[in-house]
Structures are given as C-alpha cells and as structure tokens.
C-alpha cells in the first residue's frame, strides 16, 4: 500500500533500471531510497552489512520471472530474500544486488489431507502452516527456532533444521516439489506430484539447501504430518556439563529416538532467564537438557521412565516432566527465543553451527571453553544435542575495536574443532558469507571446484547470490594453514 502521499522520485542520476522495475511490479512495490536500502543491508547475521541497489516485491511467479530475466539480460546481480532471519548472511547483498523480496507471496495455496501435502508460496511463514492445519490434527514438522517469523522459502534455501529434526528430519525430508525460476528467467517444476521419489538425479535435494545460488523458489509442495497421539517433555538440570553430555549419548544408545533433545549451558541459561520468556531455571547449574518424546500413546510412559533413569544414572541434580501443555509451551518458548535473548546479556552475538558425532560432545564442549578463554569472549551454548548440532553463541561488543574480528576468529576456531572431531561446519544455518572460508576445513580445492561447476550449470553468469556458499579458489591462505 502507498503509505505516504509523497510521490516517489527517481532522481536524475538514478539509473533506468528502477523505472524498469516499476513497469514489472508497479511503483509501490519498489524500494530504492538510501534509508530503505540501509534497512536491507543484512539479515540475522549482522557482521557484514551491504546495501542493495533496490528491493522489489513481486506478487506472483510471472513477476519473479520477469524480474529475473531483466536482471540476467542487464547483468544486474540479484538475490531472493524471505523474512531475513538467516544466520549466515545468505540474504545479504554483497554486490549491491537487486533484492527480490518474496514476503508478499505468502499464500497457502492448497492442503491435501488425504495425500498429506500442502502447497505454499515461498513467503508463507513456517508456523502459519501448522496453525492453519492443526485443527484437522496435522502439522508441518521442521521447526527452526525462528518459525514464528521465518518463511518456508527461506527454509528451503537454507535446508533449515530445528529442535524436532532429530526424529523427523530437516527441511529436505519434507519437500515434495518445487516451482523454480531459473537464473535466466525460465520457470521449471521439479518433483513429481505426491510421488516420493522419481527417477533421475535428485534435483529436489540439490535445490534444497542451495542457499539461493541455483534458482528462486516460487512455489513449494511440502509434506504434512499427523499430530503425534501423545507428547511428554522432560527437563533435567546437571551440575556438570559432562554428566549432561553422557546422558545424551546414553539416551540414544538406549534405543530411544526423542523428538527433540536440546541442551543449554550456564551462560545460555543466564541469557534466556534475563530475556522475555524466563521459566525460572536455576542459575547455578552447569547444563540443562530438554527432552521430548512423542508418538502413539502406548510406550511413551516407558520411554519417559527410561529417560529419567538415564538422567539419574548421570548424577542429575533435578529432573521433572512437564505437567501440561502450558508448561511444555513455556519451556519451548524459553528455548526457541534463546538466540534473541542473548541481546539481554550482550550487545552482539555470532552464532556458530558446527556438527559433531554425539560421542565427542564432552571433549568438543571443553575445546569451545578453551576457545572462549583464549579469545577472552564469553560463549553460550544452546544446541540440538541429540543430533550433535552445536550452536556456540559468541558474545561480543562490536563497539570495542577489534572485537568483531576476534569473535569471527573464535567462531572459526569452534568450527575447526568440530571438523577436527570428524564433524562439519554447518548443521542447519547454511554457509552463506559467514562460513565460506571454513568450507576448506571439510572440502579440498578439487571438491569445491566440482561443486562450483554444478552452480555454473544452473547459474552460469553467477549473477544470483554471488559470493555465497563456496570460497573462491586460492583465497585465504591462513585458513589453509589452519587446515594443515
């Protein structure tokens, strides 16, 4: 809608591209003034800030295709953006891109309960899907902590995970089909309607998690699941991080597959308790586990008993089962707003996203402690312990000269520790700009080269989301040194 009566003026030195965008999407759907551009200079990863050339708001696939075609023909770098909650800078316009914001394509196009699928537009908010179908007893499983606001289009780009992905899998396990505008403006559909697997290469798998470098997704068919018959949630407090870590391993070894198995350390607890959704966790404990089991009612109680026994065997200080949905809801709100709550105890934070084999949890957490001491920065840990997906939150103050760089280095050191432990540098937040050089921790030059060739097939001009995901060959010697 037109907010201000003021007519938008394209100044004399403003190039003719803006006029072209006006023609494609309408004047009201184009932003280009400096102040507006500044508000799009980063996503949830704020260390790098670069303003775009323009932000355009298409309303349908046709407009997206026209915008993409125009950019391709005029050699304009461009990228797609959802809610801008990404944590690795995937939507940050490094090259003065034209941002194609998909937030106005936010429809739920259809729900097919019989075949358990739904079709959404990319700007549709993750949690809205579950809210729309819950009255019929269904939900959408991938639940990133930002699910209150993040878009499913963004989830596809980043292959987003979440607390309950331990049992149910990440976004890629829930995508049945995509409509994609290719970097030259062609519109393609991939994934057979309702068919779980189709012959040929797994293009759905390739597109999901490609971090917006292969195409712009304009329609998504997702799997929806029936609500579990029953749910139980356990909260366990530990005096020693090692005891908590061992409990995680023991629960999985016992053959239980919890829906979620989350851990927070003392610094993280301080943050969430200072934030807006405190639940009264004691401040003097070293770690807490939040464990949820769900499924058919039969057997849940036995699993809970087993989990309680495992916790007791590992010297749990206090353990309790959620009394009702309200209590469970409070525990989860506290957990899911954890990253944002760090603002209450630190002016800035950088969240890392390493993955390690579960069995190495205690030693890697100890290494992260050492990194914290070495760089003299506090590090909070809130993470998906069950699948070994760590989220060290490096707390810093960008106003102190040099501290941002220190935080970046500390983050990189955390990822090095993860890859050295036989793990990986990202579990669900993506590589983006943030971990681009750390890709070398896990891939050789040849492997990176092979993958950039795949990108060239889809995105030969490299106009789409340039400078993300893969490092350029031969850069960043110090990282190479670190690998050696």
């Amino acid at each position, binding site marked *: *809608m*037109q*907010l*201000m009566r*003021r007519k938008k003026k394209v100044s004399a030195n403003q190039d003719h591209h803006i006029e072209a965008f006006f023609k494609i999407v309408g004047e009201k759907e184009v*932003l280009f*003034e*400096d*102040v*507006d*551009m*500044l*508000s*799009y*200079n*980063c*996503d*949830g990863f*704020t*260390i*790098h*800030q*670069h*303003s775009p050339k323009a932000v355009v*708001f298409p309303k349908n696939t046709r407009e997206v295709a026209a915008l993409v075609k125009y950019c391709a023909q005029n050699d304009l770098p461009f990228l797609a953006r959802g*809610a*801008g*909650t990404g944590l690795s800078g995937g939507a940050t316009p*490094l*090259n003065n891109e034209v941002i194609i*914001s998909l*937030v106005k394509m*936010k429809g739920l196009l259809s729900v097919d309960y019989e075949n358990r699928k739904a079709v959404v537009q990319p*700007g549709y*908010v993750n949690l809205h899907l579950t809210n729309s179908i819950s009255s019929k007893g269904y939900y959408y499983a991938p639940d990133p902590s*930002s699910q*209150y*606001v*993040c878009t499913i289009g963004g989830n596809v780009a980043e292959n987003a995970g979440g607390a309950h992905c331990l049992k149910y899998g990440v976004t890629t396990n829930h995508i049945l089909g995509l409509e994609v505008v290719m970097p030259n403006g062609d519109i393609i559909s991939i994934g057979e309607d309702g068919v779980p697997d189709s012959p040929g290469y797994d293009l759905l798998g390739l597109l999901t998690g490609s971090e917006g470098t292969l195409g712009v997704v304009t329609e998504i068919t997702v799997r929806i699941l029936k609500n579990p018959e029953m749910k139980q949630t356990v909260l366990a407090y530990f005096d020693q991080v090692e005891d908590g870590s061992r409990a995680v391993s023991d629960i999985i070894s016992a053959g239980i597959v919890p829906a979620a198995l989350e851990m927070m350390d003392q610094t993280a607890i301080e943050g969430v308790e200072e*934030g*807006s*959704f405190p639940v009264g966790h004691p401040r003097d404990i070293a770690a807490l586990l939040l464990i949820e089991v769900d499924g058919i009612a039969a057997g849940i109680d036995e699993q809970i008993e087993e989990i309680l026994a495992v916790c007791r065997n590992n010297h749990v200080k206090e353990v309790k089962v959620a009394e009702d949905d309200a209590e469970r809801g409070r525990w989860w709100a506290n957990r899911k*707003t*954890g*990253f*944002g*709550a*760090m*603002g*209450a105890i630190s*002016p*800035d934070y950088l969240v890392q996203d390493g993955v390690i084999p579960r069995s190495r949890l205690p030693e890697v957490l100890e290494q992260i402690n050492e990194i914290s001491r070495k760089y003299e920065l506090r590090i909070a840990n809130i993470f998906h312990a069950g699948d070994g997906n760590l989220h060290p939150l490096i707390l810093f103050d960008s106003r102190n000269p040099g501290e941002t760089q220190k935080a970046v280095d500390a983050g990189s050191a955390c990822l090095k520790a993860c890859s050295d432990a036989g793990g990986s540098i990202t579990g669900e937040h993506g590589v983006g*700009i943030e971990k681009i050089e750390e890709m070398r921790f896990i891939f050789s030059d040849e492997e990176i080269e092979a993958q950039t*060739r795949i990108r060239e097939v889809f995105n*030969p*001009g*490299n106009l789409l989301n*340039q*400078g993300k995901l893969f490092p*350029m060959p031969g850069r960043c010697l110090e990282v190479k040194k670190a690998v050696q």
Partner: protein
Amino acid sequence: MSMAKDYTMEKQPACSTKSLSNYFPEDHPDPAKWDDCVHCGMCLEACPTYLETGQEQHSPRGRVHLIHAVAEGEIKMDQSFSDAVFTCLDCRACVTACPADVEVGGLIEEARGQIRRAEPLTGWKKAFSSTILEKLFPHTNRLNKVGGLLRFYQTSGLQSLTRKSGAMNLMPDHLSGMEAIMPNVGHPVREKYKNMPVIPAKGDEVKGRVAFMTGCIMDVMFSDINDATIDVLTHNGSEVVIPKNQTCCGALHVHAGDRDSGRKLAKQNIEAFSDSDTVVINSAGCGCALQEYPELFKDEPEWKEKAEEFSEKIQDISKYLYDTGYEKPQTEMKTRITYHDACHLAHGQGVREEPRQILRDIPGVEVVDMPNADTCCGSAGVYNLTNPDMANAVLDRKMENIPENLEMISMGNPGCMLQMAMGVQKYGRSERIVHTIQLLDWAYKKQKEEQRQLQTSGKG
C-alpha cells in the same frame, strides 16, 4: 566462470559521510535500548505495519536498525527516516514478542522527538498539533466547551441535519467516519464532582482512598465511563478523590515527538497527584504514558526520581479491582461479548487477564475469544487521523477477527472504542462498543434495581 567480487569487513556507508551521531545531543535516543537488539527478527510477525507492507523499514527491528544508523552517522534524519519512524503505530506488540525486551516504543518516541526538533511541523499537521494538542487537550475548560458544543450538536438536531444533508461527503473519508460514531456526550465528572473533595465509599466498610485520573478525551466524550468507574470504585468500598490540578497525560504529545510539552504536562500531573498513594485510570493509553514518565526525564535526575515514584502509583482500573477484590454481581446480564486487548493495556502494561476475569465474573456474560485479540485496531492515539490509510488497513485486519453473533465488544481504551465503533459501522455490523468497567457498573445497577423492586413488592 565469473568470480564473486571481493568484499570487506567494514560496514559500507549508505549515503552520508561517516561522522558522529546525526542526532541532537539533548534527549538523545538511548544506545542501551538498541544494544539489546540482535536483529533476530522475532518481532516481524507481531508488527501490524510490517504485516501490511512486508517492508523492513516498517518493521520493529528495521526501525531500531535505522535509529541506530542515525546515531552512527550512517544516515541523516531525512524524510524516509521520518516515514519509517512515524509509520509505527506505537502499539508495542514487538515488545511482547521480543526475546530480549528491547524497548522499541521508547526508542521510537525518542527518535520522534529528534525528528520534530530537526524539522518542525508545517501545514495541516502543524495546525492540528497546535490547535488540538497544545491549545485544547491541556485545558479542561476549553475541552468542556468543546464537549458542550458536541452536546449541542448532537441534541439540537444539527447532527441529524448534517448527516442527512450529505455535508459529511465533503469531509475526508476518515473524518466523516469519525463523525458518524461520535458517542453521545454527557457531563464530565470533573464538573459534576467539583464541589466534592472526597466522593465517599458506599456501604460501611471503607477499603481505602484512590485518586482518579479522569483523562481528557475520556471525561469529555466518554463521561459515562468515568461515571461508571467512580460508581464501581465506591461500590467496592473505595473513596475517590479527583485532584483538581491534573491535566492531560501528554501521551499524544510524546507520540507526536513533542517531548517538551510532554514533560510540562508530566510535571503538572506528578505534582497534582503528589498526595495520592494510588492513582486509578480507565484509559489504557494514558495509563501507559503515566507509567512511562521516567523516560522523559533522563536529563533531569530530580524529576526522574519523582516520575519513578509517580509511575509506581498508576493502576489501570481493571488491575486495581482485580488486585484489591470486587463484588461479583448477583444478577444475570445475558449477553455475548468479546474482549479486545488495547495495545497499551496488554503490551504496554501487561494487563490481559484482569479485564477478562471481570467480564467472566458477571453472571450471564458469555465471553467469546477473539483471535489475535491483542493486535492493534489502528487507533493508536491520533494515528488514525495522521495515517488514515494504514490505520484503515490495520482496522480491516482487526475486523476480520471479530467473532460473529455478538452483542458487544469490550475494551479498556477510548481511542480503541472510537476506532472499533468506526469498524463496526464500516462493516455494517451491530455490536455495541463498551468499556469493560461499564458492563460491571450496569450489572451492579441492575442488581440494585432488582433489590429495590423486591423490597417495594415486599412492602406492598
């Protein structure tokens, strides 16, 4: 294959040269407030203007980002910045959603003060501000005269004449809408009780004494609600005093960026209520503004302390009754009602359960839940006059959520009442808009009437 361009670690200057803060040093927006924001975006879906536009500069974190950028000297306070800051409804829904308690509302108001200082109002906005905010609201006698005029307008037949004549078609849409839903004007309680230093409690037991902040719009346009408030308070054993020197709370001035007027009014109110321990108010917007007086005195420590003491005394009527106890009516009201959370009650003061409980305690009142009850209706002080398009869009969204087959919609703020009345009329609906406290008052009155009839028939 083309290579990705190199990039650097520095923030790029967006337009102006990098320098010190582009704010005036006095009453500078508080860096501690934006330091809490880590740009996580959890506020986005709570913000009515983001939902409407999908644009970052019209989102809470976007506004915080821009307010911060002016302090860093990255941008100037230009028209685009002003648009972003003044498009905010000041509804505070973001504050409820924020994991880190970022005081977005306070930042917005500080930034508005800076913009007004940099670029004083011109044209009709200036005329509006000086006529209504400066020359009318702070002056009780003038307000009462306007109230008198309204009364004359409504009772003289002039109103129906105007409506019939189609003269309203000459007014801008949003103003003719306002005219149509103007409540019938009664007599202000400040006039009615001016010769009564203390309005005594009914019954034998006196619970305590409260001071009543009558509000300016409330007392002129909704004096029946003020009457109801006093009656409910005295019915439940409170003595009520109406300090004479009280004035407009200044909320609208502060929302508009006129912080100097806000401070002047705040000082007058702080003094006027200096003898009171508890100050009760029935207008959510005013109550929230009174509680936030300390924000205005960052540079005046002595007044800041007084303001902090004052803000502790302020209680919304529903919270006061809920906390101190009230008689549950014994009579049946038989009505289907829904409750709308005024932003400055739910998000601003954290009062959500109390008014609902009062409604549920009235026998025969069926309270139907409204989805997204705590989403702004678009009234937002005088926002519906200054930003009518956005206010209407926000109202449309609100009206979509009002359940069917209701008799009444209840709430605790006069601005919302006017806006919702406009919504009801716009959509051809029939719900009556009431203040929560009115319903309780009616129940008490009905009960009294029934007791009286019973006694009369008993005697007969």
